[in-house]
């Protein structure tokens, strides 16, 4: 499959911010030793090269469809990016220089995927509309920031409405210590969903809601964003809380395990 390196390189080096960068050790594919590389996370792409001042990129990892896991390794502060949706997909093994760096990278990689940002934006859009209703102001008071719709005002917020953030739609890679936790497990709370959710096989891909609202139609009344039966709404706040808790618990547990040197079967996350 063709992919234009120049386009990727340009994206990496252009003026938009790098979301996170730093040294990580990466286990080679053939040469199984860990090599120190400079990593740069931008959007849902993880670029890497030898040193920060080197110009040439060595490679890029597209962070869609993978889970982030703590892993067994001779290296300390190791974690891996795991693709497991179909046979033959690989796992990248990485290691940080210390525990804070490991935790910080895991957090960043967990939330780098497209679906996470899409869900967050939808959540803020909802809050924005509520705020506009609650505080109808003088239009001239509007922020000097150009809104997302400078040229097509009637289409305003419709662009971002691609349906509800249904449970099965949100897809965050999960963090597991040797287990592959799916965020579906974490979100399996409301029984309203008519959709069967997979217990252990993580749904790694967001089910895109193809219900894109046609652009030339006036926006539906508040709160009536169309639901295509793809499951109950997910509040980003719940998502986020669970994420943060999960990461902390896993790392704490991993540290404990390391000291005891015993593998125990336990539920890391209690869903009640």
């Amino acid at each position, binding site marked *: 499959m*063709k992919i234009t390196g120049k386009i990727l390189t340009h994206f990496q080096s252009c003026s938009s911010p790098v979301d996170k960068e730093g040294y990580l050790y990466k286990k080679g594919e053939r040469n199984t030793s860990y090599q120190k590389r400079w990593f740069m996370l931008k959007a849902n792409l993880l670029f890497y090269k030898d040193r920060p001042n080197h110009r040439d990129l060595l490679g890029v990892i*597209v962070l869609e469809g993978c889970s982030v896991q703590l892993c067994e390794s001779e290296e300390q502060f190791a974690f891996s990016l795991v693709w497991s949706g179909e046979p033959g997909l690989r796992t990248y093994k990485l290691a940080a220089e210390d525990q804070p760096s490991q935790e910080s990278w895991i957090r960043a990689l967990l939330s780098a995927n497209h679906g996470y940002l899409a869900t967050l934006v939808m959540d*803020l859009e909802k809050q924005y509309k509520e705020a506009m209703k609650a505080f109808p102001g003088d239009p001239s008071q509007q922020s000097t920031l150009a809104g997302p719709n400078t040229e097509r005002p009637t289409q305003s917020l419709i662009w971002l409405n691609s349906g509800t953030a249904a449970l099965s739609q949100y897809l965050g890679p999960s963090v597991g210590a040797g287990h592959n936790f799916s965020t579906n497990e974490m979100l399996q709370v409301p029984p309203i969903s008519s959709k069967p959710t997979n217990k252990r096989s993580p749904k790694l891909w967001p089910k895109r809601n193809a219900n894109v609202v046609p652009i030339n139609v006036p926006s539906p009344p508040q709160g009536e964003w169309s639901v295509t039966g793809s499951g109950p709404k997910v509040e980003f706040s719940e998502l986020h809380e669970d994420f943060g808790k999960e990461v902390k618990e896993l790392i704490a547990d991993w540290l404990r395990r390391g000291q005891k040197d015993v593998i125990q079967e336990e539920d890391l996350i209690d869903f009640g």
Partner: protein
Amino acid sequence: MRFNEKELISLSRQPSERAAELGMRGPKKGDVVKRRLVKLVVNFLFYFRTDEEEPQGALLLEQCRVEREDSLAFSITFLDEAERKYLFECDSQEQCQEWIDSIIKASYEFMRKNLIFYRTEIHRLTGKDPLEQYGIEDETRFQVTSGLQLMPKDI
């Protein structure tokens, strides 16, 4: 430059935001319009030769310009270079407009800019930073930069 090709190919098989057979012309001189199955998945545009399982190519929809070319066609230009302009021919004006809007919406950069806009506006209206409740207010990617201007055509 190495990339995780298998995993990207796997991504191309996932449910897409939009997929259709369109006429597609590559950027090089002498390229002609060919029918391709074009599929938008997250911020990648995959294109397949009809009836082939593996995509012929993938375009990252960041730092590119999407423009209406005429009533039925749109183009995507990378690096502001004419040699990197891809043309797509649709079957109707509506389809053409829908593709343009979907592609713009799909860009990570576009989402980020919208997020910053909403964040700023919510803060202005309510006095509260909506990202604080999630503890992500300090993330670099969500910082407000001064003089932010969003041109809908430029992603």
